[in-house]
């Protein structure tokens, strides 16, 4: 990770290249929540309103999808937690002005967003398990 450096051309492109992975991690967990949500709503509508596929199979398939999505979010959260690096640095908040602080902050944000997305996915999949049919 780069520390302070002289100004250089195309600063934005270089910064994004440097933090691509953590920026993906920050946006990916909530994006997975959103995709999971749309899949649940969309496929159930197609099953119920359009009758394209049986609702039982749809529910089972979506529960399977839920497990996959949860695993994905958990992995993202773990990577974020590692990037936050609270164990070795002991710094919970990252209020400093160095590149390292920014990097750890992005890790922390990714970790927390993964937690909230994880909970969100569990909430949204509860009706799949608890409600039957298309009534």
């Amino acid at each position: 990770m780069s520390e302070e450096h002289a100004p250089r051309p195309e600063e934005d492109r270089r910064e994004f290249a440097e933090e691509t992975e953590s920026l993906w991690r920050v946006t990916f967990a909530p994006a997975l929540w959103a995709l999971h949500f749309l899949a649940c709503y969309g496929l159930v509508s197609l099953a119920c309103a359009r009758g394209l596929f049986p609702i039982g199979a749809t529910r089972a398939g979506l529960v399977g999808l839920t497990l996959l999505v949860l695993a994905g979010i958990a992995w993202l959260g773990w990577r974020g937690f590692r990037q936050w690096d609270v164990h070795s640095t002991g710094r919970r908040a990252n209020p400093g002005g160095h590149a390292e602080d920014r990097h750890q902050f992005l890790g922390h944000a990714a970790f927390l967003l993964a937690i909230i997305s994880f909970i969100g996915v569990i909430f949204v999949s509860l009706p799949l398990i608890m409600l039957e049919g298309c009534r």
Partner: protein
Amino acid sequence: MTKEPSDTAPRGPFPPEEAMLAEPVPPELDAARTARLRAAWKAPTGWRYWSAVNNTEVGKWYSLTALFFMLCAGVMALIIRLQLAVPENELVSSDRFSQLFTLHGSAMMFLFAVPMFEAISILILPGMLGARDMPFPRLSAFGYWCFLIGGVFVIGSILFDAAPTSGWFMYPPLATQAEGPGSDIWLLGLSFIEVASIAAAVELIVGTLKCRPPGMRVNLMPLYAWYVMVVGGMILFAFPPLIAGDFLFELERSFDWPFFDPTRGGDPMLWQHLFWIFGHPEVYIIFLPSIAIAAMIIPTAARRPIVGYSWIVLSAVGTGFLSFGLWVHHMFTTGLPNISLGFFSAASEAVVIPTGVQLFAFLATLMAGRVKMSLPMLWIAGALAIFTTGGLTGLMLAIAPFDFQVHDTYFVVAHLHYTLFGGMIFPVMAGVYYFYPFIAKKLLSERLGRWAFWLIFTGFNVTFLPMHLTGLLGMPRRVYTYPTGLGWDGLNLVSSLAAFVIAAGFAVFVWDLVRPKGGQPLAPRNPWDAGTLEWTHDVPEETWGVRSIPHVTSRYPLWDDPALLARIDAGRYYLPDAETGRRETLITSVIDAEPMQIQRVTGPSWIPHVAAGFTGGAFIFPTFHLYWPAILCGICAVSAILWWLWRDTARPPAPEDEMRDAGLGLRLPTYAAGPSSAGWWAMWITMFGDATAFSSVIFGFFFYWTAQPDFPPPGAAHADGTGTALAALAFAAAWGLARAAQRLNRGGRREPARLALGAGAVAAAAGIGGLLLAVAPLSPSSHVYPAILCAIAVWIIAHAGLGIVMLLYCLAGSLAGKLTPRHDADLQNVMLFWHFLAASALVACAVLGLAPGLMTGGAP
């Protein structure tokens, strides 16, 4: 990605060293610089004052106008309450009552809550970021004048007994079949304002991304800036579905295309979906920026840094995402399958978690600090109490069976007013008291402020708490009167009386705001001992924003760096001078805020007024079915905007001006193109919103297919295959030619580039022709299937028209020397537009040409 020529790369030391910062500036040099800077940023005087574009002026007009509309809507609320005070009252007629509640809701949402966020942000965000102004001041001014024209048009309709009557969410078929121009005034007037809102959102996002002070990395941004970014992003995803809905709705009102008419295959539910995909995030679009004000006031009141900065960022982003999964909780009684309701019910409960995290972080900050119960803090305390109550009834309403019981009753009215007063009015009032010394350099009265607080707080609770009960006793919303003997009489009378206590509180507040303060001493520079950059403002006022743009290394620079203020004032930091006499601000990188460019900022001008006036005409004339004047206005608006862009944006600097001294030994380029430039980001963000709107129209197509057994109807005429194929090929070719033009121009081959630009425009015109040919066999008023195909074609044709104008603009720029191989910002931005246009055109052609075949199981 092409390489920048190395002679325009930033040069010099960064970050600045302590010794450089400590070096004094000779007094006579400083005086000369100060004078030049003051002259460059001087606000125009006399009648020319109204041509100002400074964020300080536009922000003031914007917020006062929003306040005025809020007071108008408040008066409407008082008339509503007077009418409901006693049973069987005949104060106003049923129709007038419908106009009142429709306009009360619409004005509070579209003319007050969202514009107020934009107004306050335009006013204070540059200060927080140590920027001199927003990146596109004339765009803010354009947005403001659009808002003023549209707002007066919409709210003025009630004076002519012509206001919309169908409720603020305009459900069809009631609204599509309503007589008179009311529904059209709502649709077109508010669409016009939504366009202005999106313009402001783009400006605020770009301001936060590219105009931060050097060194302010993403982990150091003031929380307000984080919220602005989240809310700006939400506006870009939430408003476009409504604009798409308005587009379909107005096509039905004006040309009888039956999108929402079930007798011809339409479906009123599509409007409900589109409206609430906008409408629920809208609640958070209003709530988050207001709570952002709390996030600025609370650390100051507690006199310590915020507890859980990352947690608050998480909850802002998390709320932003989750709020898009709640929309159907407004539609629990529309007969969707229970399991679908369950998803939305669950998501509505889940959104409480991030919302709660913010409130707990605030409480933790207050507990960990030494709280000073200042007036702003009092309003914040009131906000937290009221919002939490509203949140709790929200949890009840998110449970579908409970919602079935109280749907459309006064319980809902009570709930939404609790969330909006607690989540918006009270924090904004806190913000007014807190930021008033920053804005007007005077303090508001402590005594009047406490009076206003207790009047509004008490009045609010006595008005709205009983409404929960009125609702549970079964009183429906939006009835203009009610019979006696149902147990509603006393509760309504109490609500009506207390409404006037709220009004008295606002009267005290408005008096405090507008009373002459000439004899009052100037406010101290940092009256609350805050730690963020806006409190480095100058008292008495200077219009330059900040004397010199500081280098920032912490979240609360005023607390952490005792030398900062003196150095800013001494012109020790960046851009201490305006050597060319022009307005400039510093552009920094998105993640780490490294200095990248000195950007020229536009000054006072009448062109935003001209553009806003004609844009207004283009939206307002169709209300009265005057299409030719509207088209004429549209052409004039486009011409005015082209003139504005041509004269003042992205002009190549003189060769000796390519690189300039930014202070502290740093030399920066004055021209940027592509992702380094603010304009490119603005285009990218705008196109994101545009793509969302287009997706909503496409969603409409698939919605009809999902919801109806015979879509497309058997035997229906389909789009012409040859025309569709021609359109797809032509648009792909136009995109390829634009891309080639960009490459050729970059490589210095200007003649072939011009040829490609011209050919691209011709190809795009051929694409338009192809689409017209494709929809020629359809008759859109016969059924929703041809109607939605035609709507998609209209959308693409309008965008392709713009795409042609842009290509020709670049061609003209190349011929006139505005666009050169090195100075190709215009062309890069146009290319971005064409990426989105080509993608939407191909999707449109696929829907027109392929989807019907797949759906009916045979070739169309």
